[in-house]
């Protein structure tokens, strides 16, 4: 006799979770409605800090959406069975996070009602316009890729689709990095290092999200992950975290070397109040050193440690993006090099930014969209990784 009461309570829990996600998404919609009717005056953004908390959430989601596909690529392109079994789940997470991220980005626009204009008036020199193609292309490609994995008759096309996704996501994250790399005048941006930095960051953030979701799905289905697989993916996270730390360090080191950027680096790393605090404590300590300890300390590195390390990597990602996006704008634009400047428009001043509740509602709304897509899909389709008893590679 099957114990139905346990199943029922699980069923109830599922709907409670879904309702909670829906409620958060609804909160996001409320924020959008308020910003639509009152204008961005109710956000903390202003003419100095033009991109705020919504962009931190959106860029995290989009970068992680690209990075999580690494799991799929290692399977499809490099033929590793352990990762191939996880490719459907990775692809689902990618689609879910991309949807959430794009929703936030789009709904933060001053005129989201005009989004069609972006399709009808295309500016070939705008990296934003390229990204519209890159994001929608990625969405379609990943859906096709999923189709080739989940529909037996489409299986022969799986390798080709996997390769296409592999190439596309590199271009996509390059495009995300280029948004900042193309800003010629701002001290914080305008560096060719940014696209590769975003690519390596995406590996770490995507895999961290994957670890957390995989853990939840295994726990929900009362299954445990093969320790050998756990160890492999855990070590991979460690390598990605070290890699991203290296890229971020290189970015700051090159800036420090240029005299005209030393003022900015001093602001971000030492004197800028919340920004150095978030950078050192949030990103370096919580987002990198602690996860590395949890991963590599002998005796640690079990399931709980991996989930904790992954969660910390995600938190660190938000800290880094806050410093990068908002700190980068808070530092005054150097219009007159060699001069002290002041004006009624914040010239020469550190810009202040207090994010409003509406911005957080919108950001969390994006997370909720990703959560709902994942939860519903995992329930109705089979995304549970199916490992073979013997791992050949």
């Amino acid at each position, binding site marked *: 006799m099957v114990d139905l009461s346990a199943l029922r309570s699980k069923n109830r829990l599922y709907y409670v979770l879904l309702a909670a996600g829906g409620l958060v998404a609804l909160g996001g919609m409320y924020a959008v409605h308020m910003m639509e009717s009152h204008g961005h005056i109710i956000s903390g953004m*202003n003419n100095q800090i033009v991109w705020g908390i919504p962009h931190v959430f959106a860029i995290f989601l989009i970068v992680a959406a690209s990075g999580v596909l690494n799991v799929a690529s290692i399977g499809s392109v490099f033929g590793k069975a352990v990762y191939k079994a996880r490719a459907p789940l990775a692809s689902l997470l990618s689609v879910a996070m991309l949807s959430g991220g794009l929703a936030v980005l789009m709904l933060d626009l001053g005129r989201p009602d005009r989004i069609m*204009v972006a399709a009808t008036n295309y500016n070939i020199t705008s990296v934003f316009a390229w990204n519209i193609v890159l994001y929608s292309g990625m969405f379609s490609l990943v859906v096709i890729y999923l189709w080739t994995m989940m529909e037996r008759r489409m299986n022969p096309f799986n390798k080709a689709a996997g390769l296409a996704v592999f190439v596309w996501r590199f271009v996509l994250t390059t495009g995300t990095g280029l948004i900042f790399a193309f800003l010629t005048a701002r001290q914080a941006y305008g560096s060719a290092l940014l696209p590769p930095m975003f690519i390596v960051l995406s590996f770490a953030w995507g895999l961290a999200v994957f670890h957390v979701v995989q853990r939840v799905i295994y726990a929900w289905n009362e299954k445990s992950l093969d320790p050998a697989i756990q160890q492999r993916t855990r070590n991979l996270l460690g390598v990605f975290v070290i890699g991203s730390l290296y890229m971020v360090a290189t970015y700051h080191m090159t800036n420090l070397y240029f005299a005209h950027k030393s003022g900015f680096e001093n602001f971000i790393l030492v004197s800028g109040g919340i920004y150095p605090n978030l950078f050192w404590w949030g990103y370096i300590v919580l987002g990198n050193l602690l996860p590395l300890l949890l991963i590599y300390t002998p005796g640690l590195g079990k399931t709980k440690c991996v989930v904790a390390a992954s969660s910390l990597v995600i938190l660190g990602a938000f800290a880094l993006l806050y410093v990068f996006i908002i700190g980068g704008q808070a530092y005054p634009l150097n219009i007159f090099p060699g001069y002290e400047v002041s004006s009624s*428009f914040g*010239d020469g001043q550190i810009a202040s930014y207090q994010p409003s509740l509406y911005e957080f509602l919108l950001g969390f709304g994006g997370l909720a969209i990703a959560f709902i897509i994942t939860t519903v899909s995992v329930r109705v389709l089979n995304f549970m990784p199916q490992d073979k008893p013997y791992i050949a590679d």
Partner: protein
Amino acid sequence: MSDLNPQRRSFLKTTLGAAAVAIAPGMLLIDMAHGKAEAASGKVRWGMLIDTAQCKEGCTDCVNACNKENGLSGGTKATDPQWIRKIAIKDVSTGRVQSLPMMCQHCEQPPCVDVCPTQASFKRADGIVLVDRHRCIGCRYCMMACPYKARSFVHEPLENQNPDVPRGKGTVEACNLCVGRIDNGQTTACAEACPNKAILFGDLNDMNSEIAIKIRSVASAQVRADLQLNTGIRYQGL
């Protein structure tokens, strides 16, 4: 042609006539709204030469004139649009203090136009950089890209707008070099308002214009000339 139908022919004639009568006043209105029929000429490059020695510290006449001309509130909160602002600059090494107005520099290679996803930011043939408020989706990428922080985002609903300078909540705006005045053969509001005639407006391409003659004879500079954007606004005495 035995099946010729005169009734059908007259019906078509009447319909066409009625349509013409209905459309004609509308076409006339569109024509009037467009103002001058001829397009901006690529032979012209509008620009300004600002003499910082003549720009008085504390004087905001150009700013006030701009606000009045374009229907701006004149507020200076971080969320208030400012199309032109006075900047006080002090040379760190020598201590020399100067005052100057800063606005859209109407670059020949404008970064805002490059990055705009919808071509809402555009450069007119005569060098004026503008924002099409009907195309702007409010992404603010141009504000990130502008090296002069010349652009503002409209954060609040607007009231009592100047009908000649329509603006819109949720879109980006900046100095339009008083394009409407220029098209009517006038100078810019800021140049007109400056009590010391520190702002000289004119056609940089016309070798005989006052501005072109002066730029040939005095030392002038572009702000952030290192970016090689070839700005339409030049500064003398910087």
